[in-house]
């Protein structure tokens, strides 16, 4: 990385705040060559920018914490599920809770108004010691309620899919599809990862399928052509029935019994 300039993405909902960071980055370019690859006004725009594979990858994202639609922590939660993701430095004007959590988890952050020497130091530190995104435990302490959406990329746009609307998640070849009442969304995350992250919301019904616990209204027995019988999960307001594997049947049965 030493020869090529550092590529940065600035994410902040306030235009003046983005301008200010741009100015500062230009000021420190003598000491640390850098290019601003782009700007985004919120987490969704940032995800769109980072999902664009035609662009060379971004090294560092400077991200504000409080933003509409998808905030800074939310953005990092979404990035955490990806294969390759940039380093992240948070910026905040004043947020004592977040700052305390950052300190506890040794996450780098800059206080606004950001000062050039501080920005330079943070970027130099990253260059010497490339840092992974905050781990799952750190993210949990930053946002105990977890993320509220999954995201789906469609023709360069990022759509946020509210978790509460997802009835089931199914692995199909390369992707995972999330089914809501209205339609399906393609999700670029692994089912195993999703199962770990949302163990409280979804239950595994089959090797390739996670079902929202609160969407299950019952089960039904089905006899296949070869004479084997198995169970199907019935979902609230959806005609589609999902097969339950022999291995997962005890868990599903226990869940139904609880209700």
């Amino acid at each position, binding site marked *: 990385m030493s020869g090529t300039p550092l590529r940065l993405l600035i994410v902040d909902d306030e235009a003046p705040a983005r301008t*200010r960071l741009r100015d500062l980055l230009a000021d420190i370019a003598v000491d640390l060559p850098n290019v601003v690859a782009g700007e985004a006004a919120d987490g969704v725009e940032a995800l769109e920018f980072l999902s664009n594979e035609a662009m060379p990858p971004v090294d560092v994202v400077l991200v504000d914490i409080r933003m509409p639609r998808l905030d800074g922590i939310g953005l990092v939660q979404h990035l955490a599920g990806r294969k390759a993701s940039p380093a992240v430095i948070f910026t905040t*004007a004043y947020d004592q809770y977040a700052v305390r959590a950052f300190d506890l988890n040794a996450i780098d952050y800059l206080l606004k108004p950001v000062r050039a020497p501080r920005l330079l130091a943070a970027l130099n530190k990253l260059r010497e010691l490339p840092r992974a995104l905050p781990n799952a435990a750190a993210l949990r302490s930053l946002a105990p309620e977890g993320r509220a959406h999954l995201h789906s990329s469609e023709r360069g746009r990022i759509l946020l899919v509210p978790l509460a609307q997802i009835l089931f998640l199914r692995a199909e070849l390369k992707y995972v599809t999330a089914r809501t009442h209205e339609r399906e969304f393609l999700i670029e995350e692994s089912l195993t990862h999703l199962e770990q992250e949302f163990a409280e919301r979804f239950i595994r019904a089959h090797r390739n399928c996670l079902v929202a616990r609160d969407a299950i209204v019952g089960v039904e027995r089905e006899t296949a052509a070869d004479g084997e019988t198995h169970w199907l999960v019935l979902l609230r307001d959806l005609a589609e029935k999902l097969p339950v594997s022999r291995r997962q049947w005890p868990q599903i049965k226990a869940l139904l019994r609880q209700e």
Partner: protein
Amino acid sequence: MTSIRQNHGPFGGPALPDFRNLGVWLRVLVGTNALAALVALAANGEWAELPVELALLAASVEPSLIASLLLLHFLQTRLARLPYPAGVALVAAIACASSTGLHVLGISASNPSVFQEGVFRGLLWTILDVAALLCYFHVRARLQSPALTEARLMALTARIRPHFLFNALNAVLSVIRSDPRRAEAALEELSDLFRVLMRENRELVPLSDEIAVARQYLGLERLRLGDRLQVKWEVESCPPDALMPPLMLQPLLENAVYHGIEPSDQAGEIVVGFTRRGEQLLIEITNPFHPEAQPHGGNQMALANIRERLMLFYDLEARLDTELQGKAGSVDCRYRVRIAVPYRPGVTT
């Protein structure tokens, strides 16, 4: 000088209560009737006759009591200018006059006692009652000593969210290179705003001053939020000389920006309205409501703070309520804060 009138005089000495204040009226009514009930209880011979005696006593006490309070209500402005002893004498005189006057008019003729003796008794009783109540108000004022009340007011006086201060400074820094004039203007506004925030805010101020502070604040927020922040003022139906407690608008607007504008990437409108309804001044602020961005406790804290300050300024006569307009979760759902304070025109002397 319509500050915390009830608690201290213009020079810090003892002062009479504000007879236009509903809380004062309530206390006088309850106090006098309690005294009357005690007297009836002490004089009572036959237990079974107590209710009748109480009713008779009330019938003779109430008309003159209310007449005195009404007189005091209208004389309040004059009364407030008198030195304390003269004020006390005037209050006693008014009470005695209304007691005797009503006696003469025969309103309490149902009282079977001899006329002359009745007058004398009534006067003695009235003077004792006035003395007891004024002592009570004096002690109460001493307990809520000006220093203490002022300290509470100072502590409660709206504190700007640090979030706003640092964001505003950041916004100013960001335009300094590209638009020095705008940065200059913004710093001037910021300094004006802080001058107001840091002065001693214990006197009522004209509405126009409050609006000026609010506009300065919103101007600074616009610098960083741009067109996302839309503000509509509805001030036509309100006299600009009305007095209100200082720094009530700014914290409410800060809440409106924080909860109503910042959580959305779309433009949102804050509507600020003032209306005079009879003897009341109504202040209404509405902003878009975003249910997903509400977990903070900061809003409730700001509201509790304002409630307490209203209490210190107006006792029971001011009200603050909040309400959701429209279905929660719908696009046009709005959050409304409404404050009602007694209408007091500013003195133009």
